[in-house]
C-alpha cells in the first residue's frame, strides 16, 4: 500500500508556499500528498497511521518562486485570492490552495473563473470570507484613548486580518499614534504619527499602560452610548435583524454593547 505523504508547514503564506514547493517537486504524485498547516488547533490532531509526516520549514526563496509562478502562470488575481485564502482560519486551507494551484498551473488565467469547479470555489469562498471579515472590522473595531494619548484597539478576528486592515487605519488616522492588537494570535500593528505602520508578534504584550484611559475617554464613550441608544426607532425594534447584521462575536470590544449598560445589551432570548 502507498503511504500518504503529509507535508506539515507553518501557518503563514511563506510556510504554505514552501510546503507547496516541496510537495510539487517531490515525486510522490499529487494524489498521495496532503498539505497540512500547523495551527493552534492542529497541534494535537490525530496522527494517521500509514502516513508519513514531512516537516517543512518556512523558506523565503521557495516561497518567492511559488508566488512568481502563480502570477506568471495563472494571474495576479489568482495570486491575491491565494494570499487572502492563506490568512483564513480554515484548517484545510493548505491543501485547498495546493489543489487550486495544480489546476491553475494547467489551465492558466481562466482558472479563477471556473466557479463551478470545487477546487476553485473553495479558494473563492476562503477569499470572500477573509475579505468580508476584514471589511467588518473596518467598521466594528473600536479605539480607546489612553492617558498617553495612544489609541488602542483589541480585536479577536477568526481570520488573520490584522495586516489587511492596517493600511486603512494608517491612512485614515495618519496623525495619530495607535496600536491594534489581535488577542487571538498575539500580534499587533503599531502606528506612530506620520509614519508607516509596522507589524509585530507580541507574545508578552503588556497592555496595562494602554488600558489607563485618558480623562475624556469615559465621557466620549458615554456620549456614544447615548447616541447609539436614542437613534434606534422604538416602533421598528428588531433584535434578530440586529444580531444578523452584527453577530455577537464582534461585540466584546464595542462600548455600545458593554454590559454595564442595560439599554444597549442585546436581547439574548431573540424576541
Amino acid at each position, binding site marked *: 500500500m502507498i503511504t500518504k505523504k503529509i507535508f506539515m508547514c507553518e501557518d503563514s503564506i511563506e510556510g504554505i508556499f514552501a510546503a507547496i514547493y516541496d510537495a510539487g517537486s517531490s515525486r510522490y504524485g499529487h494524489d498521495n500528498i496532503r498539505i497540512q498547516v500547523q495551527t493552534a488547533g492542529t497541534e494535537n490532531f490525530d496522527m494517521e497511521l500509514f502516513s508519513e509526516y514531512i516537516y517543512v520549514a518556512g523558506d523565503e526563496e521557495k516561497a518567492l518562486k511559488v508566488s512568481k509562478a502563480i502570477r506568471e502562470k495563472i494571474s495576479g488575481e489568482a495570486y491575491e485570492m491565494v494570499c487572502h485564502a492563506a490568512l483564513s482560519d480554515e484548517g484545510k486551507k493548505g491543501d485547498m490552495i495546493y489543489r487550486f494551484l495544480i489546476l491553475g498551473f494547467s489551465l492558466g488565467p*481562466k482558472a479563477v*473563473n*471556473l*466557479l*463551478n469547479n470545487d477546487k476553485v*470555489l473553495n479558494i473563492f469562498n476562503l477569499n470572500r470570507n477573509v475579505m468580508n471579515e476584514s*471589511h467588518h472590522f*473596518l*467598521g*466594528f*473595531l*473600536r*479605539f*480607546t*484613548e489612553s492617558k498617553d494619548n495612544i*489609541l488602542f*484597539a483589541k480585536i479577536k478576528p477568526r481570520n488573520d486580518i490584522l495586516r489587511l486592515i492596517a493600511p*486603512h*487605519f494608517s*491612512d*485614515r*488616522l*495618519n*496623525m*495619530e499614534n495607535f496600536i491594534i492588537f489581535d488577542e487571538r494570535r498575539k500580534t499587533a500593528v503599531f502606528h506612530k504619527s506620520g509614519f508607516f505602520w509596522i507589524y509585530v508578534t507580541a507574545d508578552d504584550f503588556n497592555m496595562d499602560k494602554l488600558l489607563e484611559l485618558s480623562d*475624556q475617554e469615559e465621557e*466620549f464613550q*458615554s*456620549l*456614544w452610548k*447615548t*447616541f*447609539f*441608544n*436614542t*437613534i*434606534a*426607532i422604538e*416602533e*421598528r*425594534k*428588531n*433584535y*434578530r*435583524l*440586529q444580531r*444578523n*447584521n*452584527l453577530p455577537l462575536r464582534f461585540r466584546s470590544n*464595542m462600548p*455600545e454593547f458593554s454590559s454595564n449598560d442595560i439599554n*444597549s445589551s442585546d436581547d439574548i432570548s431573540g424576541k
Partner: protein
Amino acid sequence: MSVIIQERMPVQKKLEILSAAAKYDVACTSSGVDRSGSPGGMGNSVGCGICHTFSADGRCISLLKILFTNECIFDCKYCLNRASNDIVRASFTPEEVCTLTMEFYRRNYIEGLFLSSGILVSPNHTMELLCITLKMLREVHRFNGYIHCKAVPGAAPSLIEMTGWYADRMSVNLELPTASGLRNLAPHKSRKNILRPMKQIQLGRKEAVGKPFRIQDSRTGSDIKLPDDLRLKDSLNKDDLRLEEDLRLKKDLKLPDEWKSEGDWKLQDNFKNPETVILRPSSSALGLVKRPAVSRGFVPAGQSTQMIIGATPENDYQIISVAEALYQKFDLKRVFYSAYVKVNEDSSLPSLQDGPPLLREHRLYQADWLLRFYGFQASELLSEERPNFNILMDPKCNWALGHLGKFPIEVNKADYYTLLRVPGIGVKSAQRIVKIRKTSNLRFEDLKKIGVVLKRALYFITCGGKMMYPVRLEENYITNQLISIKERLPYGIDGSNLYEQLSLFDDVNFTSLNHTDIRSLTL
C-alpha cells in the same frame, strides 16, 4: 410656537434630543466616494461605505446622524419637531458638532457626519449655520472623512453652493411623493423649494466635472440610461421641470437681511456678507461663492432624497414613478423610502394600527433596486390598472409571472440583462454565469453551486435546451408554486399571519392580489 429652551444644556442632553430628532431620517450610508487620507488631516472615505454598528432596530449606523437644531419654525404634521409640539428644544453650536464628530471618528465609532436641521429663524439662517459647521470641520479640524449635509429648502443658492464644496453628499428630502401630499402635511414647504436646490446640486456636479479635480463616481459603471422615448409620463409637475431656467434667473438674487446671523457666531467667514460672496452672476450653477482652498469636489458622492411612505394616499406606482423621474432627471444616487411612523396625533394623518408599513417599504426598496441595477422601468413593474405591488411576492417574480411569454430562456445563451430578469438569479449569479460560460457549458448543478435559487428559477430557464423538470408554463400554477416557497423577508417583516389568512381562500386568484385587495380580504 411653544418652546422649552433650557439654558446651558449639557452636550449629552443635546445629543440625546437632537439624535432622537434625526432618527427618522433613513439615509445613513457613507458610500459614493473614494478618497485617501490627507497629510496633516484626519480621515478618508471608502467608496462602498462602512457600517460601524447596528442599532436595536437592526439599521446600520455609519454616520453621526443629528439635527443641528430642533427649534423649528415650520409645522410639518408628521414631524416630532413641528413648531406646534410641546417638546424640549435644543441647538448645538458648530464647535460642539465638530468635537463630537472628531472624537467619535478617532475612536472609529463613525464614518463621518450626517447633519440635518430644523428651521431655526429662517431657511437661510439655518443653512448658514450648517455651512459654518462644515467649514469649521474641514478647515479648522482638517476633517477629511465623510460628510452628508441637508440642503434646506428655500435657502439661497450661494449658501447651498458653499456647503456643497464641503460636503460629500447632500440631500433635500422630497418628504412626500406628490405635491398635494406635501401641501396637506407640510404647509411651509413647497415642491418648488425642494426641487430647486436639487437641480442646483445636479447642475453644479455636472459643471464641476470639468474643473481640475476628479469626481469619483462609483456608480458610473452601472448607471442605467434609458433612451429618451421610453421616458415615462412626468410625475413631477411642469413647474418643477422649468427649474433649470428658473435657477439661472435667481442667480444674483439679493439675499434677504434675515439670513445674516445674529447671536454669537464669532467666525470670520467670508460669506457672511452676501455682497462679497456673489462673485460673478453667470449662467452656471456654480461660481456664486469662492471655492475653499482645499477642494474635494462639489458634492462628490452625489445627492439622495427620501419619501415618507404611508402618510398620504399615493399608490406604489406613483411612488416608484417619482423615484424613476428623480433618478433620470435629477441624477440622484439614491431614493430612500421611510415607512411612516406615527409620532403626532393629527386628524390629517392615518392611524396605522398595524405599526409602520414595513412590508410595503420593503417592496419599494426591491423595486428601486430593479430600477437602478436590473434595467427595469417603473411602467413595466406597475400600471394604472395594477398600481400596487403584490404583497405575497417580490416585484421581479410578479413581473416574470405577468410575462411568461418571454420564458423560458437559455442560461448558456441569454445576455446579461435577460438573465437578470429571471426570478432566482441576482446580480452576482448573473455575473458569474456570464464569466463561467466563457469556458464551459453550465448545467443545473453548476447553477446551484454559484448561488442561483433553483427552486424559483427552474420555471423560467433551460440549460442546454432542457428544463430541469417538465413543468407547465401556466401563470396560476407557477404562481402557486412560487408562493409556497416562503420568501426570505428581513426579520421583523412578518408575512406569516398573512399566509395563514390567505390559505382560507385557496381558490383565490393570487396574481391579482395587491395591498388593498389583501386588506379587504382579511378584514
